[in-house]
């Protein structure tokens, strides 16, 4: 039995943990405000808010696409659909009013998704800026408006939110009808729910023994929704011990398998190590998908173009895998892939942790990605580079590239060729030439072979131009 709150209603359901939150909301609860657009997390029409009890007993809300949210991941949480934020008939919330006033809705089918994303933005504990406002709706696709009206609505809201009480945000928001008053009772209700559940954990369709591991759902619920509805699943998204990002005494950064892309992006530790992290993450999926998708899922999916896989390949990350109760072992990420979508780990081994040596002060890192659409798209080619440089000479180098072979590639020979070399246009050009011999791209919907080869050359140049503007110029390289 799964237990959670849906709007202001306590839910107890025996629907399967691997079914989607979207189907539960629409077809079991008959809440039809949440729409089905694509069932793959690419349109945002089904966006809902998921509120999770924090250690300080506040509830933090994140936007998620309910089409890819396993119902089991709702357990113990507060799920909010548009029906749960609507004010009395005839009045609109400030979010709804802003969209109406600025003409941000035409056919209306995507509109509720925008309403929920912006309501989530209103509930955020971070200061509201124009940038955060737009980021809140970066997973929502609209085919009618061309977005300018939605930008205007977001800007109007951002101004209203400038006055938000940071101490008592919920009462401030409830007074202004951003959310109904019952939101203020939710933290206590979730605490009570947790206390009640500690004695009898959720079991329905969820088993700690099940072979089918399910994390954030962003890949598996796209690929195999029918299967996941039918079989027992082992939910790991909320499992204690699989979250958290820490640095060990030996300098290695360790994080749990259920760490989401958003956890990474928001981590002060990661931001300190990678000052441009927010820029890289903006290129990776969208806000709701980053709230759901786990790093381990990105690795295990084994896509040759996985953004986070490419990112961590350049950092020589390792994954700790294990069979529950039977010990664990480490596999270098660069050894995890044996071929297209095949892994060197055993089927019953699960990812437990991911760890990598933190870059040292002075180390250089960069991530590049080009896709048909810059944001919320799968790369044509992506690449990351980590370099240790002294006096203009490369001491150590690791370069990765995605979309140019059957697996996410660590470019071993390219990397090795740079070691000991001075950073000059010639050495960089020589390295890119070696890279061409390490890759074997195919023509597909993400681009032709010629394009992918050319693009990798350009992205390698981009790494060096970004990192060494004082040593290289664009003209010299291209």
């Amino acid at each position, binding site marked *: 039995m799964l237990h959670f709150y849906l709007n202001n209603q306590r839910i107890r359901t025996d629907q399967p943990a691997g079914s989607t939150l979207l189907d539960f909301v629409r077809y079991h609860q008959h809440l039809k405000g*949440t729409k089905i657009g694509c069932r793959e997390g690419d349109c945002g029409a089904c966006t809902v808010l998921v509120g999770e009890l924090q250690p300080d007993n506040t509830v933090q809300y994140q936007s998620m696409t309910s089409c890819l949210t396993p119902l089991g991941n709702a357990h113990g949480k507060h799920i909010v659909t548009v029906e749960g934020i609507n004010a009395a008939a005839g009045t609109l919330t400030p979010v709804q009013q802003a969209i109406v006033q600025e003409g941000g809705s035409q*056919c209306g089918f995507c509109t509720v998704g925008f309403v929920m994303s912006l309501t989530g933005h209103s509930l955020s504990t971070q200061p509201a800026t124009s940038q955060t406002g737009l980021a809140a709706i970066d997973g929502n696709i609209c085919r009618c408006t061309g977005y300018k009206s939605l930008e205007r609505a977001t800007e109007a809201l951002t101004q209203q939110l400038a006055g938000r009480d940071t101490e008592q945000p919920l009462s401030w928001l409830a007074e202004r009808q951003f959310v109904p008053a019952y939101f203020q009772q939710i933290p206590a209700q979730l605490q009570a729910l947790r206390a009640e559940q500690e004695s009898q954990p959720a079991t329905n369709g969820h088993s700690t023994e099940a072979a089918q591991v399910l994390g954030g759902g962003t890949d598996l619920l796209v690929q195999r929704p029918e299967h996941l509805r039918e079989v027992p699943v082992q939910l790991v998204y909320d499992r204690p011990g699989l979250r958290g990002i820490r640095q060990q005494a030996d300098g290695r950064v360790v994080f749990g398998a259920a760490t989401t892309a958003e956890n990474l992006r928001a981590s002060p530790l990661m931001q300190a190590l990678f000052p441009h992290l927010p820029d890289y993450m903006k290129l990776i999926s969208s806000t709701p998908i980053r709230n759901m998708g786990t790093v381990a899922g990105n690795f295990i999916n084994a896509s040759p173009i996985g953004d986070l896989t490419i990112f961590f390949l350049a950092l020589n990350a390792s994954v700790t895998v294990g069979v529950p109760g039977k010990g664990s072992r480490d596999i270098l990420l660069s050894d995890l892939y044996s071929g297209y979508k095949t892994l060197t780990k055993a089927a019953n081994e699960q990812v437990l942790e991911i760890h990598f040596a933190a870059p040292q002060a002075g180390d250089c890192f960069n991530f590049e990605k080009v896709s048909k659409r810059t944001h919320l798209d799968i790369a044509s080619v992506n690449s990351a580079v980590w370099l240790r440089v002294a006096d203009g000479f490369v001491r150590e180098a690791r370069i990765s590239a995605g979309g140019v072979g059957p697996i996410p590639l660590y470019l071993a020979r390219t990397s090795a060729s740079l070691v000991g070399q001075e950073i000059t246009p010639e050495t960089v050009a020589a390295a890119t030439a070696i890279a061409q011999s390490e890759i074997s791209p195919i023509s597909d919907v993400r681009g032709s072979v*010629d394009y992918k080869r050319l693009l990798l050359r350009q992205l390698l140049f981009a790494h060096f131009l970004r990192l060494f503007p004082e040593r290289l110029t664009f003209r010299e390289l291209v």
Partner: protein
Amino acid sequence: MQMPGVIAPASGAPAMNHLDPVRHVRGESQYIDDVPVQQGTLHAVVFESPLAHGRLRAIHVADALNAAGVIRILTAADIPGENQIGGIVPDEPLLAEGHVHFRGQPVALVLAETEHQAQAALHLIRVDIDPLPIITDPRVAAAQGELIVPPRTFRIGDSGAAWSQCAHIFEGEAETGGQEHLYIETQGAYAFPTEMGGVRIISSTQGPTAVQRHTAHVLGIGMHQIEVDVTRLGGGFGGKEDQATPWGALAALGAFVARRPVKLVLDRMADMRMTGKRHPYSSDFRIGLDANLRILAYEATFYQNAGAAADLSPAVLERTLFHATNTYFIPNVTATAYSCRTNLPPNTAFRGFGGPQGMFVVEAAIVRAAEALGVAASEIQRRNLLRENDLFPYRQPAEMCNAGLAWDTAEQVYDLPKLRAEVAAFNQQNEQCKKGLSVMPICFGISFTKTAMNQARALVHIYTDGTVGVSTGAVEMGQGVNTKIAQVAAQTLGISPNRVKVESTNTTRVANTSPSAASATADLNGKATQLACEALRERLLRHACTEYTLHYEGLDIRNEQVLSAGQPADTTWEKLVSSAYWQRVSLTENAHYATPDIHFDPVTNQGYPFAYHVYGTAYTTVTLDCLRGTYTFDAVRIVHDFGESMNPAIDQGQIEGGAVQGIGWMTMEELLYNDEGRLLSNSLNSYKIPDLYSVPQRLDVHFLETPGHPRAVLRSKAVGEPPLMYGIGAYFAVREAIRAFRPAHQPTFSAPITPEKVLLNLYPALAPTATSAVVVSNTAVA
């Protein structure tokens, strides 16, 4: 009465926003999948052809029939009437029979107790198909004589004779890709058997009458037995004009045969695989100019990729010819178009309806000439703009022509020389990034080019409490037509829009409707509403004369008050309506509107097909990252001819949304099929439409001041399709930026200009596959 959707307008014009969003934002607007499911409903899924072309020898359904929950599996043999849904040409079966002609063609319909059961049963159906050769390229189809209809040629002057007058002649090829509609609400219908032996269909269609007519035909019963009801669509863009019909007819077939309600909603990938899109075109052009850059002659040959059946392709083809010269006067034109049959899903209407494809080619020809002659393309564009009474190739004169006004206004409002100087300075100072600027003037004809379709009816009821219900043939799909109709009714009757309800579009209330398409929906249905309301108003005022002993002359209703010679009379709207009822005065009116003056002869290809034309000009500025081949649009600055906009808020939304949709078509929306006719860009993760971050940072819309047009509703011009063509400027802006980086290179005229094409054009020497234009001829003829 409270009306949260109404805001004070910036311009002081009508104080009205789009009415529907007040419900949209609360999630209370109902779409097909939101209709409460009636007990006993069966769920239908479609079994599609797995091959693009072949002889269909057998369909094996026995295993699927034995699957849990499966009630029936219907094939062509189960169709009681004729298995035919072709609109213009009867060449499209509802369910495949004998042959399959494209991947995704419906072959069988599975009816089951639940959607999951129906989906599971799909995997148990097998078909025997003997493969036949597959054609995906329109030029190959044309070479093999695979044409949907005979070719059409629009001709004015004598282009053959004019070449000798030209100082400069240029030739080339131009290609535009298809475009997936990507309405966020997928296709669907919900059908209910009626007690009279007919079917009631709730359909997500732009063309309720098309669904009704074809369903009746398929079921072998009268149209009066089929009722189609449409509340609203979650987007249409042309994709639900003709292509909502199969799903409506299939659901109805299921309901008719099984005598139970049948619901059929396509999932996204099925929708993308099975439905047609904007037509890809491959075209040849030849353009000739005199020494003063006046275009003397233009020839174009268009190869339209129609897909496997006619659908609306012949009409789309015709509009390509209507817009082959865009907003330019060219005295000698020969434009020929071939509708080519290929083994792809039948392509269909999409905002612009073939017009954009024609306009892209003439713009390419102009740019080709400008690049060769070393002048700005805008110089050639400007010198050839239509002037009053210039003839289009179809012999209609440009009347109340605003081409020059739009062009000049844009120059003044946005300061073109300054914008150009900024781009030039930026390009001088930057190596890695280059900017490009394009000017895109447009001209778009308003009316269905099939003259008979330019008719509409409105049924208006005034209830005894003074509230009003309006039914028309217009379908609300986000374009705000219901709001405009409510405005027309309220304004004509002199009452508050709060009293007016625009009803669902229903074939039993308003019959024989034209689809909501061709940008003409508000004009046709709005004018019909206006006529009905004028008749009611007159009838009520005549009644007021006798009831309150007033003079008819000088009687008026304003703000729900009856005025006599400008002074309030002793009655209000509510009282007047009530007393009229008791005096047995009819409070219902049904009016018919047919656009006056228009005609067109499809044999001579001459006439006066359009009620009027819409004009405008857009400047597009792009910044190109010449390292990565990616680009962002700095600004699109538009001057648009709205006439006297009756609803600036709605109209601006149409311009913004249309322009961005056009930019998507020209940039990232890449429709890819392989040689087997399989769609590769088959989901939202592989087919990308503009997102929030990819739209121009700035999108300015300036309302051109004009008196409007009398054939437009309340002189407010049609606004649906024209703005899409501003997006064409995006292609040419990116091309400019590429040439700023690599001036000697001439990229092929091939849209969409994806980051892939950009990068390959930036570094042509590093891309073994040729990307540069094959210059067929660059001969100056003496």
